[in-house]
Structure formats: C-alpha cells, structure tokens
C-alpha cells in the first residue's frame, strides 16, 4: 500500500465496520474482562478486608498490609522469592545461553542434544516435581551418586532439611527451564549477523571476545524478553514447590505464591491472602510493563 492510499482506505474501513466485527471483538473481550480483569479488581478490594468467605467482608483498611510486614513467614517467603528469582533466573539464563551458543552451529549430534535438553520443558511442573522427589529420596540417585564419588558427608534428606529444601526444588525447576531459555536464545542467535562473527574471527578475535563484543550486543532484544519472562515466571512459581515440599519444612521453601494459597484456601483468611496476592502483583508489575513496552516497540517497527 502506498502512503497516499492508506488514509482513504482506513476511513472507508471504519465506516464499514459491521456489527459482526464488533461482536467478534466484544465477545472475547467481555470474557476476558469477566474472568480476568474483574476478579483482579476484586482482589484489590478484598485485600482491604477481613473475610473468611461467610457473610460480608469486614473493612479493615490497610491492616492486612501492616500485618504482613510484621509476619515472619511472609518475610521469609519474600526473601525466598528473591533467592528464587535470582537463582532460577541466573542459572537458567546462564545455562540456556551457554547451551544455545554451543549448539547453534549445525554439526553431528546437535539435534539429539537439543531435543534431550528441551524435553523436560514439556512435562508439567507437578510431574517435574515428582520426578525429582524420587531422586532426592534418602536412598535415591542423588545420595547414591554422592556416595559413589566419596562425598558421603554431603548425603542428606534434601527435601526434609530446612537448609536445602529450597535449593533442591530450585535445581528441579532449573532443569526444566534451561531448555526453554535455550530455545529463545537459539532463535536470537539465528537473528544475529554471521558475517560479523566471521570477520572478527579473521581479525584474530578469540571465541570469548567474539561472543562478548560481537554476539552478545546483538542479543539485547532477546535478553529483555528472557529477563522479563523469567522474573514473571519466578513470581508465579507455585506448582513445583507445591508438588515437592508444599513450602515446608518449617516454611523454609515457602514462596509468596504458596503462602498466598495456604492463607486463602487452607486457612480461609481471604482478605489476608488477597493482600499477599496484591504484593505479588506489585512486584510483577514492573516486569509486565517492561515486557509490554518492548512488545509495543516491536509492533511499531
């Protein structure tokens, strides 16, 4: 379409938007408003109340939030969530990126390696959790492996020990996530300019220099997406912790999401649980915006 033709066409189209088209848009939009945006607004309201699900919610202002900050379990969950975001994000990005760079060029066996590494991604987080619960049993593969290489002193009940439970779950989650990040970076690498890499190789740059000065700067777009997606994912994390430890022992692997679920659905502190949900939302918001801004930029270009 030429620039001159565009405006007239647009005007004609607007005049001709038929009721069918409006229906096409409004039905899905109404469903999303009813099942997503309306409930989300409700959570904000509920976070200002005390409610056990029976009768009318009692208005308590900001009491729930005040209570949260003196709640030791909440603070532990928040701290665990920070560890989780850093560990889960850092390890899966480092692993995924390294594997993507290693498996980028076609050579024998690359297809097999790639498939093996992103296979765990298709399992649900609950299945992943159970797969790893089996490995962490006192007589399971992890302890047996440690024993076999002479590290008996490290053997322990990984999921029952408050010192290791969170990290044990983290390893399982990273195992599943690395393949996903690798796929994203493989796509990003496909978008980089191979002639730049070749040229710098001819100029005598080492592999590390070529990666750091030539390839990495070209991955900036993918990095933003990966960063936003992993942080949003880590704030959402629920299933795998629920499947492996339910936040225990003694809240040592509690995350905000599992704490929220327990408060809401086990103890029926609906107002308090909503306040935790609002905190999760507030933390996620920044990254949701990052993701949307980047999306908008892509849309425009």
């Amino acid at each position, binding site marked *: 379409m030429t620039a001159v033709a565009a405006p007239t*066409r647009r005007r004609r189209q*607007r005049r001709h938007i038929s009721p*069918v*088209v*409006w229906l096409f*848009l409004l039905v*899905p*939009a109404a*469903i*999303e408003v*009813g*099942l*997503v945006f*309306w*409930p*989300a607004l409700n*959570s904000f309201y509920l976070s200002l109340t005390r409610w056990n699900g029976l009768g009318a919610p009692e208005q308590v202002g900001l009491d729930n939030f005040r209570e949260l900050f003196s709640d030791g379990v909440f603070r532990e969950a928040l701290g665990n969530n920070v560890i989780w975001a850093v560990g889960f994000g850092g390890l899966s990005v480092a692993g995924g990126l390294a594997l993507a760079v*290693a498996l980028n060029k*076609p*050579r*024998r066996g690359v297809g*097999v*390696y790639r498939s*093996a590494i992103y*296979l*765990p991604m*298709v*399992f*649900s*987080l*609950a*299945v992943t959790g*159970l*797969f790893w*619960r*089996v490995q962490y*049993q006192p007589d399971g*593969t992890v302890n*047996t*492996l440690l024993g076999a290489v002479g590290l008996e002193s490290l053997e322990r009940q990984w999921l029952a020990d408050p010192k290791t439970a969170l990290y044990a779950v983290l390893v399982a989650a990273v195992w599943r996530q690395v393949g996903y990040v690798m796929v*994203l970076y493989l796509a990003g690498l496909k978008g980089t300019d191979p002639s730049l890499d070749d040229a710098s190789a001819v100029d005598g740059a080492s592999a590390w220099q070529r990666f750091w000065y030539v390839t990495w700067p070209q991955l900036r777009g993918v990095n933003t997406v990966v960063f936003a997606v992993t942080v*949003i994912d880590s704030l*959402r994390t*629920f*299933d795998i912790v*629920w*499947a492996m430890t339910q936040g225990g022992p003694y809240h040592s692997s509690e995350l*905000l999401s599992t704490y*929220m*679920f327990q408060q*809401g*659905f086990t103890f029926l502190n*609906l107002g308090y649980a909503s306040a*935790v*949900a*609002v905190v999760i*939302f507030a933390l*996620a918001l920044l990254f*949701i915006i990052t993701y949307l801004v980047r*999306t908008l930029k892509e849309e425009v270009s």
Partner: protein
Amino acid sequence: MSAPAVTAPAPPAASPSTSHDRQRVRRRGWAFHAVMVPLTLLWVAPMAFVVLISIRGFDDIAARGTAALPDSFTFEGFRTAFGEGAMGEALWTSVQVTVPAVILSLLLASMAAFALSRYAIPGRRAILLVMLAGNLLPPQILLIPVSRITESLGIYDTLVGLVAIHVGFGLGFYTFVLHGFMRSIPSEVTEAARMDGAGAFAVYARIVMPLCRPSLAALGALATTWIFNDLIWAITVLRTQAKFPVTAALLNLQGGYVSNWNVVAAASIMAAIPTAIVFFAFQRHFVSGLLMGSAK
C-alpha cells in the same frame, strides 16, 4: 538438522596448513562431544531413573532402594496407578478439559485477532496490549475472586468452570500472537474478497482462518501442553477429588502411596506421556509456538 559435515569445509587441494587446521577443528569437535555427551546423559538421567523405578516391584524397591537398577520387571505400578490410583479417570478428565478449552480459546482469540488486525477499530493497539497484559498477571491475584465468581455462576467444582477460566486467562496471549500473524496477511487478499461482496464472517472463515493454519497449529500445540499441565486452576476451581484432572490427581495419589515409589513413578509417567506425544508430533510447531510467545 543432522548436517553430516563435522569439520570445516576443506578446499580441494589440501595444503599442509589447511590439513593442520582440519585436525585442530576435529580435535575441537571431540572436545565438544566430550562435554555434551555427559551433560546430555545427566539431563536425561532423572527421567531414565523414573522409568526404571516404575517397572520395578514394590519389594525390590523396599529392599534395594530407589537408586538401584531393576531386579524385577512388572507393570504392577502402572496397573495400580491406572486403576486404584484413578489416573485413568484423571487422564480422561484432562482430555475433557483440554480439548474444549483449546478449541474455544483459539476460536475466540482468532475472532478478536481478526477484528483487531483487519479493521480500523479505534484504540485497537491499546485493546490488544490490555488483553495481553491480562495474561501476564500473576494468577494469584485472580484465585480467590475466581473461585467466588464460579460459585456465583453455579460452575464451581465443575469441569465447565475449569474450561471457562482456562479460556478466559489464555485469551489475551493467543489473541496477541494470532494478531501478529494476521497482520502479515496482505490486505489485498481480504480486500479483493470484500470487493466481491464477501461479508466479514465469510472473509474470516474462508480466507483468514485457512491462511492462519500454521500459527493455529503452533498455538494449539502450546495451549494443549499448558492446559493439560495446569495445576493451580484445577485445585482452585475444583473441590471433588474424583473430578481432578491429571496433575492434581497425581499429587493426590502421591499422598496416598507415600512409599510406593513404583506407583508414584508410573503415575507421573502417565501424566507426562500425553504432553510428550504432543511435543514429538508437533515438535517444529511447538518450538515456533514458544518463539511466537516471546521473541515477538
């Protein structure tokens, strides 16, 4: 995929220096495989051990531990998980949830994407982004109100309620991806049909949807695994354990068969197989679906 060339392309006349280069490349190739083979084995090992445990007998595991190699071979674990453990029913429940949820999601999302990509609806970019933002919300902020809303609609603790929330929550993302694809269809194609007097519905059904088949397949594969693998919505909307889909039933079963690791392993394999099949059948679609979700 499986390019046979391991070494760098060699010029026809091999001078001393290039043959030396080739040797170095070959040595680097060995180093590559020397790292990748153990790493891949390590990656596959947890899955392999779960498979080995699932075919061992209870006594074998009790006597020799979960890490030992099988001394017995039996489908007892699978039989128990399927029958007593109710995994069979749960798998069927998951199918009953996943199929309608995927079809409805894609249908509704394609309608919205069609309207937003083909017509100059005022504020359409804002509408699209708001819809996408809905999908990025942490589910936690929806859980309590959603369980209340489904209750007041009379669909709490029903599979209809679960399908509804899957559709509602996924819509924004699917709409966004399909919009990106539909926008790339040249306007001449739909313009011509419109000139010939085709209405909006005819353009959607006969022209745009058939053209979208590849991206619908990719999104379908992705949505199937997401919905099939869901846990949090299932335990939020459903209360009756007999109605649990596969992931929720799996966690239940695990509580009931605490030390029967062969049953737990068999059940988790049963829960993993359907998505693994979708993955292998639609591998290419699946990966491109993931990319649509993020690199877009």
